[in-house]
Structure formats: C-alpha cells, structure tokens
C-alpha cells in the first residue's frame, strides 16, 4: 500500500497502524531477531483480558453488589469463587504458552500467486499438554491447534499468494485464550524463515505475434538436427526419456539419447524470451525450466547477471527456479494484508 495512494480515513488508520507497529516493535526489541527458533519465556509473554473477560468481570460485579444488598453469604461465596477462578485463569492461560519452543521449518516454495503454507514447529518440554493455540500473521489466522505434552506439533498457516521474489516473514503472533476465554495470552515472534516465490510460469509459445523459430528458446541444436539414439535404460536415467512405445513392444526399458555430447544441451536464454519486461521474461523462463525438466533435458540458464551451467535433475531445476526468484530481488518483508 503506497502512502500517497490512500485517502483521508485510510491514511489515519494507516498512521494508527504504524504507531501501533512501532509500539510493538519497541516492546519486542529484545526479541527483534529470533532467527530460526524462539523460546517463549516469561519475558516475552503478554496478557490482557478479552471482551468475554470484561463481560465476566461485569457479571461478577453485579453478583457482588447483589450479595452485599441481600447480605447473602452464599452469594458472597460463589462470587468470590468466581473471582478466584478468574484470577487463576491468568495463571492457567499464561502456562498454556509458557515454555514452548517455536522453530522454523523450510517453507515450501510456491509460484507467484499461489497460496503459501507456512509451517512452524512447536515443541513442548514442560510436560503440560497445550490447547487451542493460534498462530497469526496480520489478519491471517491458523486453526486452533494443540501441542501434546513432551511432544511437537507443526502448525500450518495459510498465507495469500505473492509476487515473484524473496520475502522475509513479518512479525508472527502466537496466542491462546484457553481455558476460559476471558484472557488472551500472546507472544510476538520474529522468526525469519526464507520465503521464495518463483515466477508464475507463462508459456512463451503462446505469446501472440512472436512465434518465430527461435522464439521458444535458444537451443544449441534443434532436436531434429541429430536423430535420436536409443540405448538400454541405466539406473538414474530420467523417466521422461524412456521410450515407452519400445517398452510396450519389447517389455524392455530403453531411453532416447541425443546424437552428440553437446547435442542435448539446452540453453535457456534471458535474451531469447519474446517479452520486454523483466517479470514476463522470468515467467517464460520459469515455464521453460519446468518444461525442460519434465522432458528430462540437460539445460542451462543464462540470466543477465549469472549463468547456471547445464545440468539436469530436481536439484538443478530448483537452483534455476531459485535463481529466477532471486533475480534482481532483495528480501523484503511480505505484506500479509490483502492488496491495496
């Protein structure tokens, strides 16, 4: 949300939000960089009554006034019992969060625009089963989840799709109202798992008006230039190159091999993409990377600032996709709120 694009009330709301954000940042300054794990000690757990808490407080107050007015000792007893329960709820709710260990797990990379699932691992070591914990980032909320005593639980938080790039996770909030719902106990986390968003693949072949021969990618040699050779399958050959027709006929696995050593090398070129803007090019390259990997090709990727030598396999594909995601991109804090 750009500051100059918002109007009056929205701007003041924005200012309040920023003020609030600054306040929280100041409060949590000791835990500004949790890195990949955080221990929820007493120094970072906060507590405030909820609306239900104020309601119960009001009800207890009315009960107290009634007890005084009617000089009814049993009413006094029950009122004070509820006061005791309400007071102890501070302790119970606090204990529901205290001592938990929260650590990051690798965030599965997604393509731009795809929803993101953030996994966080919670470990319990104090021997108390925890109930109804909720993980929040901004307005995004996980389903309440328990953590078993002396056990772990992987919390999942669905986040909306993002544009291509590399992101830092904004401040997270782990909270609970268990057991009575009259108090909320929470802790702010600044865990920093890396979030990588690949470009959304776009098939360059379908780009209108630019259907030239070399448009779909710059091959050193077209596949047609050298006829395929067929050789028996060896362990490690990509499944995409298996000649299934031959398998159906003979019952033996064969793979297709390109004629010369250089012949099956495919260079995916930045400059060859039929688009002018960076993001579209990256998206097209992304599509090409995926296609080449699916075909089991050996391929390299050439970007203006770097080149990845030809190789094949899942690891290579992911390297390429990461390179596309990081292209001219510095990690930014993701904005978890729905668009402007």
């Amino acid at each position: 949300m750009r500051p100059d694009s918002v109007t009056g009330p929205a701007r003041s709301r924005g200012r309040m939000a920023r003020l609030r954000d600054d306040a929280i940042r100041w409060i949590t300054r000791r835990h500004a960089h949790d890195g990949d794990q955080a221990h929820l000690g007493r120094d970072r757990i906060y507590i405030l009554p909820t609306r239900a808490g104020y309601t119960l407080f009001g009800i207890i107050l009315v009960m107290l006034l009634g007890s005084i007015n009617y000089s009814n000792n049993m009413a006094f007893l029950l009122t004070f019992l509820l006061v005791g329960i309400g007071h102890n709820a501070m302790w119970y709710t606090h204990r529901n969060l205290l001592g938990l260990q929260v650590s990051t797990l690798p965030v599965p990379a997604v393509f731009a625009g795809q929803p993101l699932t953030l996994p966080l691992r919670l470990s319990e070591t104090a021997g108390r089963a925890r109930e109804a914990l909720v993980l929040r980032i901004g307005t995004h909320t996980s389903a309440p989840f328990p953590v078993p005593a002396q056990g772990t639980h992987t919390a999942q938080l669905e986040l909306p799709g993002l544009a291509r790039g590399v992101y830092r996770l904004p401040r997270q909030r782990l909270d609970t109202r268990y057991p009575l719902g009259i108090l909320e106990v929470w802790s702010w986390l600044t865990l920093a798992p890396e979030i990588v968003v690949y470009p959304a693949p776009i098939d360059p072949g379908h780009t209108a008006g630019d259907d030239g021969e070399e448009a779909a990618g710059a091959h050193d040699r077209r596949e047609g230039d050298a006829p395929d050779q067929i050789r028996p399958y060896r362990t490690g050959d990509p499944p995409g190159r298996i000649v299934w027709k031959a398998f159906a006929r003979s019952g033996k696995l064969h793979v297709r091999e390109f004629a010369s050593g250089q012949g099956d090398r495919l260079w995916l070129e930045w400059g060859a993409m039929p688009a002018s803007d960076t993001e579209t090019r990256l998206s097209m390259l992304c599509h090409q990377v995926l296609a080449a990997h699916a075909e089991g090709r050996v391929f390299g990727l050439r970007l203006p600032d770097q080149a990845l030598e030809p190789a094949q396999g899942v690891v290579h594909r992911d390297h390429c996709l990461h390179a596309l995601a990081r292209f001219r991109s510095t990690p930014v804090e993701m904005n978890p709120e729905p668009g402007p």
Partner: protein
Amino acid sequence: MRDKTARPADHTDLRGLELALVALPVAALPHVWHQPPWITALVVLAIAARAWLLGTGRPAPSLGVMSVLAVIAGGLTFAQFGTVFGQEAGTALLLVMIAFKLLETRNRRDIVIALFLGYFVVVTTYFFDQSILIAAYSLLATWLLTAALIQVHAGRVIPRPRLARQAGAMLLHALPFMLILFFVFPRVEGPLWGDPQREQTARTGLSGELNPGDIANLLQDETTALRVEFDRQVPPLRAQYWRALVMTDFDGRRWSADENRSVIQPTAADTDNVIRYTATLEPTRARYLPMLDYPSALPEDAELRANYQVLRDRPVTSRIQYSAEAALTTPPGAGEPTLDPQERTRALHLPTSAAPRSRAEVALWRATHGDDDRAIIQAALQRFSAEPYRYTLQPPRLEDDTTDTFLFETQAGYCEHYASAFAVLMRAADIPTRVVTGYQGGAWQARGEYLRLRNADAHAWNEVWLDGEGWIRVDPTAAIAPERIEQGLPGLASDTGEEIPGFLRRGEGLSWLQRARFGMDDWGDFVRFRWESWVLAFDPERQRELFARLGLDSQDWRSVLIALGAGFGSLALIALTWVGLRRPRQRHAPADRVLQQLSRRIARHDRRLARQAHEPVDAWSRRVARARPDLRESLKAFAEAYNRQRFAPLTPEQRREDLRHLRGLLYAVPRGKPPAPRPDPAHA
C-alpha cells in the same frame, strides 16, 4: 451441497454446546420449585429443541423467530409477576433469557454468554435456599459450567475425564481465594438499595404487616429462625406459641403492627409454673423478640408493650441470645373485668365497607347464639372445619374484598388467611380481636437438646378478648389443618400425643427406628448448625470480631489492606513453595539424586571435589580419583552405572534393578577419609 459445506464450520465453533446444554439445566434445576411451571416448560422445551437441532445438524432459528419468541416470553413474565424486576421475576426473566440464548446459539460467543449467565443463575438460587445441600449442588453446577467453558475454548474435543479433572482443579485452586475474600472483603451493613430484607421476610419470616391477599406463593424457608434451650421443663408442643408481633390495626386488606404502644410491666407468675429458656435468634433486622406465650420475665434490653409485644431497644442485626420466662396459663389481661375502652375500639375497628357478606353471615350467628361469644367463636371455627377449606401454601390471589373472597370463594390459604378472616368475623360480631404472628411448632433436636424453629414454622393466630378471662388465644388454622399444628415432630406427635417433650429430652421410649431418624435429623442439623453459624451468620459484626481477634479494625481500610495482603501473601508463598518443591523433582532423574548425594558426600572432606554443574560425570569421577585414589574403583563403577542408567535403553525392570545397584555403589563409597576417618555424628 452448500449446506453441507457450511455445517462443519458451524459445528466446530459450537463445540462445547453439548456440555452447555447439560450444565445449564443443572444450574437451573433448583429453580423448578420456585418458578411457575410454564418457565420450566419453556426452558426444557428450548433446550430440547436446541439439542435436537444440534443432533440433526440444523442451524439455529432465525433472528426474526427469536425476537417474536423473546417478546412473547417477556410479556408472559410481566403478566405473571407484574414486573420484570425483583428476585422472582428477575430470576424468571434470566432463565427465559438463557433458554433463548441457547436456542439461538450461532457461535462461540453465544455459548459463552449463556454459560456466564449460568453462573448468575446459580447465585439466584440462594434467594430461595441457602442450605448446605444447595451449596454442594451449586458447586456441582459451577463445576459443569466451568467444564463447558473450557470445552468451548479448547478448539478440539477434550476427553471428558480430563475436562472434569481440569475444571475440578480450577475450582479447587479458587477455594483459597474464596475463603480469604469471604472473611476479609469489607462487609457493609444493610442493603445498598431497596429493602430486600422485607422482600425476603415477606416470604416466610415475620413482617410488620400482614397482607393475606397479596402473596400468591409462600416459599418454605428452611433456615433456622430461632433456637431455644429450656432450663428445666419443656412445655408441651401444643402450648409452644412464640409470639413476635401483635397486629390490631386493620384497613380492610392489611393488618399492621404498632411499635409505639405504651410500655407495661409483665405480670409475675408463680415460680413453680414458669418456663425458663434461652433463645438464639437469627438476625431479623427488626426489633421484635419472639417470646413464648405468655412472657412473664424479659431480657434487660427489651420491654413489654401494651399489646403484649416484646420489643428490643434496637433492631436485631446479628445473631443474639436472650433469656426469658413464660407463664403458660396466664394470658394478657387475665382477671380484668373489662377491656380498656380505647383498646376495645381499636380491636373492634372494621372499615365500614369491609366484608359485607361476612357481616351478614355473622349477623345470622348472633341471631342464633345471642350474647354467647364463645358460641360465636365455635361457629366460626366450625365453619373452617366443615366447609371445604383447604390449607395450601399456593393460595389463589384474593381480588376485591379479601375476606369475603377468601371465605366464600377461594376457601384456600394458609395461616395468615385464616387468622385475618377469623379476626374480621369476630370483629363483625363485636368481639375484640387481634392477630398475632410468631412461630409455632419447631423440631426438637435430641443431639443438642434444643428446639429449632425454622422460618417455615412462622405462624399467625388470633387473640380474642373475653371479659374476665383476658386475651384468649384462638388458632383458626388448627380448625382446618390440625396436622400443621402438630407437625413440628413429623409422624411422632400422633403416636405419643401430648407427652412428647417429657421423654424427648432423654430419647427414652423411642423405637429404634424413631431413634435412628432422630439421629439422622440430628446429624443433619448438626452440619446445618455449623454451616449456619460459620458461614451464613458471618456479617459485619462477626467480621469486626474476627478482625479484633487479630488485633485489627475492620472499619479501617489500612487494616483491611493488611489482612488482604497477609492472606494473599501467604497464599502466594504457599503456591511458590509448591511450585519450587515440584520443579526439582521433575527435573532430576533418580540417578541424578544419587549423583548429588555422592557429590555431597565426597565434598564433605574436600569442597573442591564437589561436582560442578557443567561437569560431565566421567570427567568428574576422574578428577576425584586423582585426589582420592582410594575411591578410584568405586567411582569408575559408579560413573558406568550412572551413564547406563541415564543413557542406555533399559526396560523399566532393568532400570529399577540398575538404580538399586547405583544406590549400592553410593554406599560403597566410604564416608570417612581413609587416613583419618572422622566420626560424623550427623550421619551416624
């Protein structure tokens, strides 16, 4: 399809509704006896409907349906009570509100609100009943409500036993707070608004007014009003009329007591015939003292008024004790030929428009019996016993002229109706009559040898003036419902008649069954007595005493702060100690305890040999072995056993066996230093 996808979300949010549908009826159950049946029906119906909707996965009724229902219910409540405020109407409204809240429950917030109101319902129970049974029951209700509240917020279904344990623990942990606040929270005297005492005494206790037409539902208050110990002789049950208020003035509907009568001296009775007793009176916030008929000697701070009503010099705000004497057979004005003319006028006053039909009836009696006042009295009593008069605690409301309506139409009521109607009949017949309210009956407590009069034993009767005989007691309720007069000792009076009290004092001559029943009653009252004297009787006066005993002043806020601080401080100390004691036990495995013991044992001779917290056991044992070569072998074995115990995968049996072995090694390390073994008295 849409429905199916919407439903699960709805249901997850309604987790805990099931339990709420159990907890709330439990909380509301004691009200069934105090509320009109339609309220009960409504609540049951609403809850059953919600349970059905929940069971079949249907959504709650729409807002429109709910508002129509709410308006109807509010109207019904108003129609029933004429108000929506006050104890009964307020409670009724609360119950209806909860029922509807449950019915329309859409989300978690609705359930939470209903459960909070459930706590409120539990408190309103105490308007009607403060017995220890209700206390135990409301603990159960609170427990269920709390469990439901936990389930609502749990985010998943928690196994019932765990839920029960957790809710129970919460109540248990809250008990110390409850007790401290109960005794220390500053109590203030009297009501903050309104006159709840009157509202309460209108139930069964004694009010300065008698208004038989207005109370449609007399509630039986089982709490004790008065306890009486007799010095020597226990009067027969029939003679035990405890007069409290005497009402001479009647305005056609309402009888009222007069506290401004002149003071008179009681007539001294001959000492042989006198009953001496000590009474313990629960606070009434009024000045009257119940006295056994007829008072002949009074406590010092009380005086006898011309209408034979005994008033204390100040209201009874806390439980008091007083001693007095009674002469059973000497009614007021005995032997006086005529009644004081002014008094006579007052005791004959009837508003001219009052009770025309009754007057006509009495005129007939006069015509039949002439001047014979006794015959007129008999005629009136016979009317009550012959006609289909009923004794009931739920009499119909009396419209128009209360006396005529009661005598000729409804013919159902309790003592106040009969006493009032009888007095009107007598006055119509020109016989001076007044209404006396007080207590009659009661239960003899063999364990403590005292008579207990409950608020439910409140009674109203009449006194008629007969020249030369004085004010003679007539109990018209006895004509209709003699069992009420005799029911002080249930089932026993009919067997043994008049002589009950004589042997009751020793418990002789009772069958084992009767004795057993008495035993149980006694235990019941024993518990009740403790409950009443320790819990229910605690008031500003007792709080002052308690504070004074601790050298504090309950009227001084600093004292209150000190008491609160001391209470909660010691509570915090206990809690911290408990937490502190628990933690090491969790942290240290048994093997570590043995290790600590060994370290202490070795360090006794050389402090430097104590194991440092960061020091691995192997490194430590080697370090010690260098300084104490004599222990080398033992330490090596110990370190091995320790490591095995801590880190090897052992079955529980092996672990126990191995631990025993480890402890054996501890004792193998000699206590003394070999070169110069010193006796160690502390470890002899």
